């Protein structure tokens, strides 16, 4: 894992809104970080690796948690 990516994970929950915002607008590959930071997993096993479904699941999770503005 790239050191910069690890460093972002190390910043903890306070970066979740920024990560989710980047996921929504730039499709950044943030799935590993989201799981590592939140210790939650909205991606059902059959959707693992399916980027569109993972993105949708994490953005829905972000909305539910109040971490994403509508």
């Amino acid at each position, binding site marked *: 894992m790239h050191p910069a990516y690890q460093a972002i994970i190390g910043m903890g929950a306070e970066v979740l809104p920024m990560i989710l915002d980047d996921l929504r607008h730039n499709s950044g590959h943030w799935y590993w970080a989201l799981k590592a930071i939140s210790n939650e997993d909205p*991606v059902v096993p059959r959707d693992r690796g399916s980027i569109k479904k993972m993105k949708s699941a994490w953005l829905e999770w972000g909305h539910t948690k109040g971490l994403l503005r509508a």
Partner: protein
Amino acid sequence: MTFQDFVRKVQPQFPQLTVANSRPTSPYVEGYNCIAWAANDTDHWWWPDPQNQSFWPAEIRREVTLDAFVQAYGLKGYLERSDATLEPGKQKIAIYAASDGRPTHAARQLTDGWWASKLGQQIDIEHEFSALDGPTYGRAVEILARPAR
């Protein structure tokens, strides 16, 4: 950006890559990565990440080891240890690893002997066998073959 500009941009990561030993094939698509691309899967992102986010065959240990990657491609029929030569009737996959032995990349041999690769979160290219050797991917350490399908 022209392909020449792209090659110049990635020179630090791929010092052996040139416009003479590679050609672009398709723009960046986020739905799959190099490991999936080598297996002809454009619907998933393959990686044995411990966070369980990426696709990885359920039968194979979820670890970044050459053995796990060999077994994963084995499920696609790549069961024979081989080399980089072009052999009629065979399809081949090359698994790259860094100096510490950890897999970094995979490429699929084409019918003209060149190899198809997706470069991280970059474009898809076709290239000569050694064109991607260097600090980013290391080098191809295992080549697997299966009967052509």
